[in-house]
């Protein structure tokens, strides 16, 4: 399998940068953006196998971004990642079609595992063109 292309969306640059660095070491091609708007721009210019999205962001929040990705890029699975924990939020995210809902601080191995599962399931579901 080729290198996974992951879009990492979070407004905290200090979280984005080290997380991307660690994922890259483990064979994931990481693109990082700081907002929902930037994420949509990135999706328009390059293909991704998976997106990890922070729920709480200024401007467009994670749930809105999730909705738009599900609508415009249904082949890209979205993993929600948040420090804000509520069952409600999780349920809404899952209802909107999130692949998984993870709580910060997330164990890197768990994140990796989830990203791989998401990409595998997505590629199985949507035949490659």
């Amino acid at each position, binding site marked *: 399998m080729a290198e996974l292309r992951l879009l990492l969306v979070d407004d*905290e640059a200090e*979280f984005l940068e080290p997380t991307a*660095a660690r994922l890259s070491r483990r064979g994931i091609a990481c693109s990082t953006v700081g907002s929902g708007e930037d994420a949509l721009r990135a999706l328009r210019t390059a293909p991704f196998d998976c997106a990890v999205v922070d729920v709480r962001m200024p401007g467009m929040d994670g749930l809105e971004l999730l909705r738009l990705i599900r609508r415009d890029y249904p082949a890209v699975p979205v993993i929600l990642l948040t420090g804000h*924990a*509520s069952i409600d939020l999780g349920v809404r995210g899952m209802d909107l079609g999130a692949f998984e*809902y993870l*709580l910060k601080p997330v164990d890197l191995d768990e994140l990796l595992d989830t990203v791989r599962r998401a990409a595998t399931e997505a590629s199985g579901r949507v035949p490659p063109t």
Partner: protein
Amino acid sequence: MREEPSPYRRLRSLMFLVLTAFGLLPLVAMLLGGLAAERRAAGTRARSVLEAMVKNRKATVDLFLEQKMRQLELVAVSVPVSQLARTPVLESTRHEMQREGGAIVDLGLIAADGRHLAYVGPYDLLDKNYTGQPWFEQVMVRGRYQSDVFLGFRQFPHVIMAVKKREEGRDYFLRATLDTDQLSALVREGGLESGADVFVLNRAGEYQTRYADQHRLMEKADLPPPPPHSGVRITEVSRGARRELVATAWLTGDTWVLVARQPVPGLAAVGWGSPVVWIALVGLVLVPSLAYLIARHGLHQIRSLEEERAKLYESVAQSEKLAAIGRLAATTAHEINNPLAIIAAQVGVLQDTIRDTEFLSQYPQLQDRLTKIAGQVERGKIVTHRLLGFSRRIGPLVEPVDVVAALDETLSFVEKEADAARIRFVRDYAPDIPLVRSNLGQMQQVFLNVVNNAIDAVGHDGEVRLGIRCARGGVEVVAADSGPGIAEADLERVFEPFYSTKGGQSRHCGLGLAICREIMRSLGGRISAASISGGGAAFTMWFPMQQESR
């Protein structure tokens, strides 16, 4: 009985008073109306009795007086003066008259010049001359005469009757004295009701007969005679403080009037015999009793409603408190989780980096220290996650849950910690525990809390017994520890928010069991605490087979 708070007592008194008042009002009205009617009836009865009595007495007295007059006239017509002038003849005549009805005290024959021709009787009147006496003139003119009571020559009250006798062109007069005592006896014959009075008055309103001791013959009575009328007339008059019925009947000749009077029958005359009185009395007892019962019952209803409301309010307040705490916790967790995530990521990068470098040989402790930082991040994460009661299992909220597996999985989280403190888990599961429809994550959160509490309570070197069985149409899980137990008074309080027996230095905020109780409620189950005899506490969690949809 519980002492009631004063607003309730006041309300009850008010209800009692109002009910009693409204109950008694018609009763009193009925009683008064009834008594008035009874009194009227008694009055009517008394009037007719009085009327009959007076009519009867008038007839008797009339008859008596008429009879005396007739006797006198008979003697005057039938016996010649020559005979009457003889004392023995007059004496025998008096005897004769005395025998036929008595009442004749003396008898005299008087010539036209007013001198006595003959006299028989107890007084010495033979030499008296009646010329100029009013009665004498009357009888000369009218031929027959009956006097009022007067003193006369003998200075003693008496009544005289006289008739004129004409013989050989000359006038003579036959005069008799009536016994006033006998007349009085005749009037009062047969007796009267108590307080009643019957007597005869002349036109001047002077007593002619005596009934009661206070009647003095010839004295003025305290009521004036009515103008002459026929038959019996009854009037109601005031006499001092009381009302009286006065019946009057003029005797034949309209010179004397027969008067009878008696008090108007009062309430006493109605008496206890009246059903109105009985009904009223029964009502007087019954109405306040019923009012009391109704007031008590009503108050009881009000109180239980109030208490229910208070309970509801309390539980709402409790939920709101928990919700507020939840919101605060969520916000705080977010604020803490983000920096934790950054620390974890940064530490991770460092760990990744030094793994590939020569650094390790120069700083052998670096890897160890980074691991410790990562470990502390993990610890912080556990605290925030536990505080939130967050479950990662996001899925259908209610699903078939294997309680045994859920408990075992939860125990596996804490087994290491328990082992370190030499605390043993003793499982006592009944076979064939059915699946229940519930929320696995929330159920495990409760288990985790209770088991953690049990481990904390034991401290070290002990056991936690875990039982699962079917009970009351659901599944019951019991966690019993060998710790110090819970004081009886605290058994209920342990479920209150911020209640903790673990002391200020502990990492517990005293919310665990409060959250557990809320979760158990939302799952349709129950959680309770008990003390085990011989030490230790037992927490019982019961889950229904089917969680009610909420």
